[in-house]
């Protein structure tokens, strides 16, 4: 009965056969490998691998694109500023701006690396539901209290959104429209404060109601997942890939 609205809505991926723990650990291992790579060829190969994996997992292209856009957004500021401002030898000078070749080179490396990392991580974890991840974290040995906080906060997100919606309705009904004045700022302050207080009290009462129905403070972490042959295979493959990539990179 560990189902959840979020769980029910989750698409199933072909990677579902793997234990969630394997997926998390493989993702971390692959990213750590990528961070150590400098060769553009290897990084490009990793991007191709990531794309293949994304295809295999059946992740819609739109989702992939959205994810990449977000990551590259981070890069954009650096990318614009970097080749222009770095103190490395200049490559091209336009007035006060000096475009430097090594700067550009590093920026490209970084772009490749970030893209590859995003593409590798996406198929491995993006379709995991929060509840599943919570259970996997518990089985990976994270402290039970931390796992409890994680599982509870998933439930509270919807609760909080509903409270926020109702409060916002109430404000609109009394003619509130945001403007740039003190009344607006103050109203938002009250809104957030009220939301916090209400939500905390609500959360505590929900927790009490659960305890009143025999809840002993622990979600049973039942799962049907097993660490099976597929997991051993994938883990082995990951180690081989990482070792090979690191070796080739040093050549």
């Amino acid at each position, binding site marked *: 009965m560990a189902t959840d609205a979020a769980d029910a809505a989750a698409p199933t991926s072909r990677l579902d056969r793997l234990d969630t723990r394997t997926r998390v650990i493989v993702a971390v291992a692959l990213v750590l490998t990528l961070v150590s790579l400098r060769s553009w060829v290897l990084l490009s190969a990793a991007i191709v691998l990531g794309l293949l994996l994304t295809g295999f997992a059946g992740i819609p292209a739109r989702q992939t694109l959205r994810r990449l856009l977000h990551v590259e957004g981070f890069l954009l500021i650096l990318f614009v500023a970097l080749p222009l401002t770095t103190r490395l030898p200049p490559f091209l000078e336009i007035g006060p701006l000096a475009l430097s070749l090594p700067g550009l080179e590093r920026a490209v490396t970084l772009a490749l690396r970030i893209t590859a990392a995003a593409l590798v991580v996406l198929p491995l974890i993006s379709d995991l539901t929060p509840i599943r991840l919570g259970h996997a974290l518990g089985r990976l040995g994270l402290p039970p209290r931390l796992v409890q906080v994680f599982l509870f906060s998933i439930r509270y997100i919807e609760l909080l959104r509903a409270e926020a919606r109702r*409060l916002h309705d109430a404000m*609109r*009904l009394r*003619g*509130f*429209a945001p403007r740039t004045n003190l009344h607006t700022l103050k109203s938002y302050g009250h809104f957030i404060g009220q939301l916090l207080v*209400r939500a905390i009290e609500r959360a505590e009462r929900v927790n009490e109601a659960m305890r009143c129905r025999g809840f002993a403070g622990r979600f049973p972490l039942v799962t049907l997942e097993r660490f099976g042959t597929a997991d051993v295979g994938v883990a082995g493959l990951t180690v081989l890939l990482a070792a090979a990539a690191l070796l080739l990179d040093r050549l």
Partner: protein
Amino acid sequence: MTALLDLSGIRIRRSGRLVLDQVDLQLETGERLALAGANGAGKTTLLRTIVGLETPEAGEIIAFGRHRHDEDDFRDLRLRVGFLFQDSDDQLFAPTVIEDVAFGPLNLGFTPSQAIERAQAVLTDLDLLPLERRVTHHLSGGEKRLVALAGVLAMDPDVLLLDEPTNALDEAHLARLTTILAELPVAMILVSHDAHFLATLSTRAVLLENGRLMPAVAHRHQHRHDHVHFHPIEETD
């Protein structure tokens, strides 16, 4: 004289289910309309539609002689229609009673001191002035209900929508609320499961059933009936 509110052919679906179907509703000046209906009939949904919190699939809303379609229209409408929520906790959000009641007038463009003055006037009318400095969050259920009503009345609305105003009120508070509402010269729609409260106040009634709204009458069975109070045993005769 046209109706204050005129809804026609309203159809609303909520999470896929048809809740209101072909609903027509008029509210005239000075009317106190009882809106009856079973649990889940769609009474709250209908009130929310009037102030533009729900978007109908079909139908027309005319209020104060103007068609209302988009958020801008409804923003204007909400300045003249006061809505008391089914749950007062959803409605009160300023830290103190006086700030909460003054919130509406501030949105109407009153200066802070005018808004406070207006709020105090309303609190005085409702006999709530002693609560002025209290923290809204620490009021009892009945007090919250009355303060929420004050917040709505402070905007001097032309129409009141009251969603189960009697919920959780004890007998003394209930009597007080009934008196206040009976004296207000404002058109209103009353939702309540307390048939007696509705019959006492309303000038006309409609019943919501199977997504349809139909005219209704309060059907009174005149019969012997007990009126029950609880008294400590010592006090009993």
